[in-house]
């Protein structure tokens, strides 16, 4: 059974169609990233999956259940970290966790929840005094309090400092290793590439690319770039290049072989290719390509 199944999901707000018939599946224990620019429809998708919004069309299933009509059953087994949700500002961090423990079946002990989120030292601090990144960490502590089977993380590390971001990545990996399915949305391509086994790129409410991370990157060519020697006509090069300012950029399925070809060609003519950089395909290449079409 798939943990999350989305089939032809449509959702409009007023006259604006935020999600236009998207489909994807997430396997149990997988970390799945939804990528896209602002307004691509990621948050709407997460909110439908978490049961906050009713789909206008298509079907969604979380652990085999309809999150809208069977919300109570879905909530027992899911954790949600929303992009936007308030806190009770006058409660301390510890009191907030304690309150949420009352709402959760078999919750983690308070100390464990605070330690996981790196908030042990902030236990006595009122929520209103936390920074934006600390609030996100508290949010994460609450979302993971009940050791959920499925975790929805909407922009989980926005506002966090690099240390907290890496700690959060470790936590998400640990949760997935222990069997939790994680669906996250993010602006940080590095985050998606480091964490996710599968990815879907959304643009204007549609999925424009989806699949396993390795498989999807394999569909993209790598890249070799170097400073074009002065006076050299790019057409003389043995491989086709495009110009990006001073840089000549060559796209190739096998960037190592392309670099060797270029270097051999240059050596034969007594030329040096300075600033040579060889890079396999990255998610950023794919994202920029697909979301700017």
């Amino acid at each position, binding site marked *: 059974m798939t943990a999350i199944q989305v089939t032809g999901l449509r959702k409009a*707000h*007023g006259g604006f169609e935020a999600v236009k018939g998207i489909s994807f599946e997430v396997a149990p224990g997988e970390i799945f990233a939804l990528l896209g620019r602002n307004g691509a429809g990621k948050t709407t998708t997460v909110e439908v999956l*978490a049961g*906050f919004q009713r789909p206008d069309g298509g079907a969604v299933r979380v652990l085999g259940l309809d999150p809208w009509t069977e*919300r*109570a059953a879905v*909530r*027992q087994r899911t954790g*949600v970290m*929303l992009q*936007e*949700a*308030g*806190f*009770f500002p*006058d*409660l301390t961090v510890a009191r907030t966790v304690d*309150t*949420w423990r*009352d*709402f*959760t*079946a078999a919750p983690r002990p308070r100390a464990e929840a605070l330690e996981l989120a790196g908030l042990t030292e902030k236990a006595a601090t009122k929520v209103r005094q936390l920074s934006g990144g600390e609030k996100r960490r508290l949010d994460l502590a609450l*979302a993971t309090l*009940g050791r959920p089977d499925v975790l929805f993380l909407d922009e989980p590390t926005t506002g966090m400092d690099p240390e907290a971001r890496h700690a959060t990545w470790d936590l998400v990996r640990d949760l997935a290793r222990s069997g939790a399915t994680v669906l996250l949305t993010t602006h940080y391509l590095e985050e998606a590439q480091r964490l996710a086994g599968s990815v879907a790129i959304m643009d204007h409410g549609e999925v424009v690319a989806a699949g396993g991370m390795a498989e999807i990157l394999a569909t993209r060519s790598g890249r070799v770039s170097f400073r074009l020697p002065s006076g050299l006509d790019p057409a003389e090069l043995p491989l086709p290049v495009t110009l990006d300012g001073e840089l000549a950029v060559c796209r190739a399925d096998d960037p190592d072989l392309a670099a060797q070809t270029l270097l051999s060609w240059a050596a034969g003519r007594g030329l040096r290719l300075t600033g040579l950089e060889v890079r396999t395909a990255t998610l950023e290449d794919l994202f920029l390509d697909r979301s700017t079409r």
Partner: protein
Amino acid sequence: MSLTATYKLGARLFWRDKGMLAGSVITPVALAVGMPVLMANVRADGATAAADIFYGTIALLLSITSFMNIAVALTMRRDQLLLKRLRSTRLTDAQILAGEVASTVTQTVGLLAGCLVAVHFLAGVPYPEHPLLFGLAAVAGSLTVAVLGVAYTAAIPRGELAAAMTVPVFLVCGVSAGAMGPMLELLPSWVGTVLGLLPTSAVVDAMRTGPDALLPLVVNLLVWGVVGLAAIKLWLRWEPRRS
């Protein structure tokens, strides 16, 4: 377990919100105790006049501490996306609202009991002749008014307007129950008839009259309760409007 948890949260937040306490506790208590004490001291029929106005101020207490308090608190929590956060837990919508309502009813009935004792000692207002009926009317009335307060949040566009939009409600409730003097006598009789249908009027009437007013009270509160629940089902918003 979850209902208890939301009840505890509601009670904790009620007493921590110092801004709201001024409006939802100090003001109604000052009116419910102060006016009977004033009447006891300035009127020849002191204790009778004090008792009469005290029962009128119960309508104010219900409409401020139950109705206004829950309407304002829920609207603010809706706008601050706190209700959304609560809905991200395993709590059901009904548990979230029931906890808030139960907490509000407890505060209201507790304040009412405190005021009753205070006016007994300070203004000579006798204890209710039918204490069971008095208690039942207080709890059921507060419950119904709190449910209506939850429903009323659907009409409040945003948090900053919540308190202002509840003011007409408690003014009308106060006038209809005689908490602001014999103002009804200055108005056409049909106004009194219409205002007599308010749940706060039925509660005060039952407390003043005794068992003869029990059936009308039950019918009145049942009708208003159904209206409130239907409005919640149809129109309650858990998040602020997107535009």
